[in-house]
C-alpha cells in the first residue's frame, strides 16, 4: 500500500505550476542587469517592474512600497531594523511568539521588551510599553496559526510604528492593516526559495539599517533576482485568485484534524480553533518526544514538522509553545499544501492513534 503526503507547507509550499512556468521563461529573458539601457537590460527591467506590480496588486499595496529581498528573513531584518533606525530612539518591543528572525534582529539591535500571549498564542491589545521604537507583531503565528490583532494594536499604538512579519500568512489571508513595514517569503506561498518581499508604507519613517547599494530599489541591496521575483509574483497571483476556494477546503480539513486528534487521550490541540491560518494545525502528545513522532510518521509516508526539542539536547523547545504554556514535547505541526486532499488527511488520521499508542507503550514500559 502506498500512502502518505507532504504536510509541511508552513515550512515550504511546493512550487506552484504558475511559478515554474514564469521562472523558466524569465531565466532566459531576465538574466541581464535591469539598470542597463540596452535591450537585454530593458527586458529584465520590464520583468522586474511587472513582478513588483503583480505583487503589489495581490497584496493590495502600492508598487513603490514593494521591495524584493534575498529571503523572508532578510525582509524581516530590513523592515524591523529600518523602522527602529527611523525612530532614532527607544527599544524594540515584540510579542513572545515572533519568528526567530525577529528575535535575533531585536537582540542585534540591543534587546527588546517582550509582550506575553494568552493560551491561544494571542497578544493582548494594549498600547506598547513606554519608550518603544517599533512594535513587532506577526500577522499570524507560524507554529500554531493564531492570527494577531495587528490593526487593533496599531489603533492604540500612539504613533509607535508597527512591523508585521507576514511570512506565515501572505497569500493565504489578506494582509492586516496598520503596519508601517511588513515582510513576506515567496517559498511559503508556492514561489521559489530565495525571494523575500519587504513592504514599506509610503511616508513611513524607515531608514536603511545596513549599507545602501546603487540598485534600482535602494531598499534592497545586491543584484536583482529577476526570474525569482517574477516566479514569486506569478505564484502569489495564482494563490490569491484561488484563495477563497482553497481557504474553505483547508479550513474544513483542519477542523477535521482538530476534532479527530482531540479524541486521542492526553493530546493538547493548541492555537486558536477559529481565528487562525486556514492550513495549519498543531498538537502535542503527552509522554512522547517529537523526534520519534516525526521519524515514525515519515516512515509511514507523512512529512510533518515538530516544535519539540526532545533528544536534540542542544536545542531548546519551541519558544512559541513555551510562551503559550502549551506542552512542548510530543509536538506535531501539520500544514496543508494547496493540493492536500481529503484522502491525505484521512490517511494521516487513520495511522496516528495507533502510532501514538505504540510509541507510548515503548516509552512507558522500560
Amino acid at each position: 500500500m502506498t500512502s502518505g503526503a507532504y504536510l509541511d507547507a508552513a515550512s515550504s509550499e511546493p512550487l506552484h505550476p504558475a511559478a515554474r512556468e514564469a521562472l523558466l521563461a524569465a531565466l532566459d529573458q531576465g538574466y541581464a542587469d535591469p539598470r542597463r539601457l540596452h535591450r537585454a537590460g530593458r527586458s529584465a527591467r520590464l520583468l522586474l517592474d511587472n513582478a513588483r506590480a503583480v505583487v503589489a496588486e495581490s497584496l493590495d499595496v502600492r508598487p513603490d512600497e514593494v521591495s524584493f529581498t534575498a529571503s523572508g528573513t532578510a525582509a524581516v531584518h530590513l523592515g524591523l531594523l529600518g523602522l527602529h533606525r527611523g525612530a532614532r530612539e527607544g527599544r524594540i518591543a515584540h510579542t513572545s511568539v515572533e519568528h526567530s528572525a525577529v528575535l535575533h534582529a531585536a537582540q542585534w539591535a540591543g534587546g527588546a521588551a517582550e509582550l506575553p500571549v494568552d493560551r491561544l498564542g494571542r497578544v493582548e491589545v494594549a498600547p506598547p510599553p513606554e519608550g518603544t521604537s517599533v512594535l513587532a507583531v506577526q500577522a499570524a503565528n507560524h507554529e500554531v496559526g493564531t492570527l494577531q490583532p495587528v490593526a487593533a494594536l496599531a489603533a492604540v499604538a500612539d504613533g509607535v510604528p508597527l512591523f508585521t512579519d507576514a511570512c506565515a500568512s501572505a497569500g493565504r489571508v489578506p494582509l492586516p492593516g496598520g503596519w508601517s513595514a511588513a515582510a513576506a517569503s515567496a517559498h511559503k506561498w508556492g514561489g521559489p526559495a530565495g525571494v523575500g518581499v519587504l513592504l514599506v508604507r509610503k511616508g513611513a519613517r524607515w531608514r536603511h539599517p545596513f549599507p545602501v547599494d546603487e540598485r534600482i530599489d535602494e531598499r534592497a541591496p545586491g543584484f536583482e533576482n529577476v526570474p525569482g521575483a517574477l516566479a514569486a509574483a506569478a505564484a502569489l497571483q495564482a494563490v490569491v485568485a484561488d484563495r477563497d476556494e482553497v481557504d474553505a477546503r483547508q479550513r474544513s480539513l483542519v477542523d477535521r484534524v482538530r476534532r479527530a486528534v482531540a479524541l486521542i487521550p492526553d493530546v493538547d490541540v493548541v492555537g486558536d480553533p477559529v481565528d487562525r491560518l486556514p492550513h495549519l494545525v498543531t498538537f502535542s502528545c503527552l509522554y512522547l518526544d517529537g523526534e520519534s513522532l516525526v521519524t515514525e510518521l515519515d516512515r509511514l509516508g507523512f512529512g510533518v514538522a515538530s516544535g519539540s526539542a526532545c533528544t536534540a539536547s542542544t536545542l531548546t523547545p519551541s519558544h512559541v509553545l513555551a510562551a503559550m504554556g502549551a506542552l512542548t514535547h510530543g509536538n506535531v505541526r501539520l500544514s496543508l499544501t494547496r493540493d492536500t486532499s481529503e484522502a491525505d488527511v484521512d490517511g494521516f488520521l487513520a495511522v496516528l492513534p495507533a502510532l501514538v499508542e505504540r510509541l507510548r507503550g515503548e516509552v512507558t514500559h522500560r
Partner: protein
Amino acid sequence: MTVEVDCRGQVCPLPVIALAKAFRDLEVGETVSLLADDVAAAVDVPAWCRMKGQELVGTEPVLDGGTRFVVRRLS
C-alpha cells in the same frame, strides 16, 4: 506524604513520564516532589497539571542544580 522523584539529567519527556508514574501510587491530597533540570520541564510540568487537572503547588530552585516541582493529586 510526599514522594520525591529525581529526574535530573533526564531529557523531555522522561521527567513528565516519571511524574505520571509516581502519581499512580498517590492518594488524593498527597504530593510528588519532582526534581528536573531539563529546560522543557518548566513548561511541560505545568502543562501536564493543566491537562490532567492536578495542582502545581509550587516550584523552587534546588541548591545542587535543577528545579523542584511540587504537584498535588486533586482527583
